[in-house]
């Protein structure tokens, strides 16, 4: 992916650039809001990582200006504010996702992947497939090796999120937000329990495991013969 990091704090910027490049992304860096705005007008980026607090032009105004100018590159806000109102402000300004500092690098990566691969809204939902597991969003039906699997609504939603991002890590926080609309940490291991139930239903009878736990990061679904 080609990414633009707009971040004024030198240490954070170095950490982000190094981590993202290690994961094979092409990354540009802008240390101020004005530089960032200038660079971000280039439509070639797959996603923007924008710090909320920037000298000169703050992140919110930057993204708002970009959106007003018709630039639709997905933007992920980083903030040290961590306020419960800030998420709404960020999304209102035209941001697509929001991450509070400090964050796990895996969380950032997972969210950037999810942003950049976001399918166009108009795309008709088609049947999702991973190995012999099929999920039909329209009929809300799941089969494994042709045999129907009966899932609870939340289990179905979890599986759908995982399958839409097949081969990519989906973090616990992303699942809490997308499946339950919880924008807080429930502390109880509700995601883990649901995943474990989901596994019990789709990996039944000695089939190869499809849902994998990525330690310290989240979950991913992939065919047994493919590489992560």
């Amino acid at each position, binding site marked *: 992916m080609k990414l633009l990091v707009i971040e004024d704090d030198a240490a954070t910027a170095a950490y982000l650039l190094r981590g993202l490049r290690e994961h094979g992304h092409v990354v540009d860096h802008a240390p101020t809001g004005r530089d960032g705005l200038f660079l971000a007008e280039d439509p070639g980026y797959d996603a923007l990582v924008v710090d909320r607090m920037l000298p000169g032009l703050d992140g919110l105004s930057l993204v708002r200006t970009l959106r007003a100018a018709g630039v639709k590159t997905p933007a992920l806000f980083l903030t040290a504010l961590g306020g419960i109102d800030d998420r709404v402000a960020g999304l209102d300004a035209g941001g697509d996702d929001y991450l509070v500092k400090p964050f796990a690098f895996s969380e950032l990566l997972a969210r950037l992947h999810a942003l950049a691969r976001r399918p166009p809204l108009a795309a008709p939902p088609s049947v999702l497939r991973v190995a012999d597991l099929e999920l039909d969003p329209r009929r809300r039906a799941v089969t494994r090796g042709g045999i129907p699997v009966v899932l609870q609504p939340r289990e179905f939603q979890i599986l759908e999120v995982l399958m839409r991002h097949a081969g990519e890590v989906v973090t616990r926080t992303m699942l809490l937000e997308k499946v*339950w609309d*919880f924008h807080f940490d429930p502390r*109880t291991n509700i995601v883990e329990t649901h995943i474990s139930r989901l596994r019990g239903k789709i990996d039944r009878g000695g089939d190869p495991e499809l849902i994998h736990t990525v330690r310290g990061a989240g979950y991913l679904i992939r065919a047994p013969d493919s590489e992560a």
Partner: protein
Amino acid sequence: MRLIPKLEPRLLRTASFRLAAAYVVLFAASTLVLGGVVFWIASDALNQQLRARILAESAALQGEYRIGGLDRLVAAVRLGGRGAAALDDRVQAADGRRLAGTLPRVAPRPGWVDLEAGDARADGEADQTGEVPEHVRALVTQLPGGVWLAVGDDLGRIEEVQATILGAFAWALGLGVLLGGAGGVLLSRSFLRRVDTIGRTAQAIIAGDLTQRIPLRGTGDDLDRLAATLNRMLDRIAALMDSLRQVSADVAHDLRTPLARLVQTLDTARRHAATPEAFRAALDTAAEETEAILETFAALLRIAQVEGGSRRAGFRAVDLSALAASVGEAFAPSIEAAGHRFVAAITPGVSVRGDGDLLANLLANLLDNALRHTPAGSTIRLGLAIEGGAEAGRAALSVADDGPGVPAAERARIFDRFYRAEHSRTTPGSGLGLAMVAAIAELHEAALTAEDAGPGLRVRLVFPPG
């Protein structure tokens, strides 16, 4: 348009004094108008009476003349002139000579005429029988045979009444202006004193004494109500300051321990770790400890933001039944996986005004707390009901367990920041979950109580009606 504002006495600039001054002007103006009207009406009435009296006398004398000629007229005039309230008359020959009466000479022209006493003296006809009044209004009539008859009455009586009216109103005006002015000064003095009291209280608070309050007079007037409102504001500020002090103390106390542990971990690694693996393990531990500290910070910040109250602006109708069902459903598998029983009794169709995200957070914290502090085999009950009838009913949300419970003496403290019950010191947790619950309940103006569930703990949240 104040050119020298500094020299102008403060009193003159007060609203109440200006009001008093305006009142004085208005009072004076209305006194003048009232006086004018009374003066005019009284004068008019007296003049009418005077004319009527003169006309009647004149007609009577003309009657005498017609009956008995000049002699009888002269006799009648001489006779009538003696009464106390009698009118003044003159019978005058065609050549202007006086034949009878006391009035001065009149011009031989019929109609009304005003005469001065000085006219008589100038004529050298000073009266022998009685005094002639200063001002006289007279009716002059020509009688057959060239004789003139003048009948007049004293204008001085009308003038006296007029002077009395004018005098009375002048006194009223003077007294009104004086009393209004003095009242205005007194009123604005007392007003100023009270404003000064409020100002002095504010000064004392600025100087650092937050316990100062504005004294109330108990009259319940505007200023008293303003003072009461300001006092309530000061109470709120003091409570916020206390809470802030408490948070600072809590943070200092409860973050020192993990920070000290972090320093120890790093220090031990620096001095004793010999292999890269040992360093890596120490770094992992340090990172975990740092994360836990940051989580505590984030939780404190969240609580502080909820307590700040800004979320209230985004309140809307929340389907509490659906929300409770959804959160319950999210927790049920985990609660059951931990070997507990989960029972939900949710009345459908209950809604409250609030913040859905925060209410979900509140319920999640209550369920997490119940799960964390009860042994396997316990039952956790989630309840939502309407209390106090369908009309003006209050939504009551509760989470109860049948675990060890909390001693009565400590029950009120479980909502304090960093409170950990004795027996739960070893269970993981920040001690902030229920503090967040308390903050969210307060934001929603919902009554939060911890009760004995006999056995176990029941936390109840009763929302305001409507």
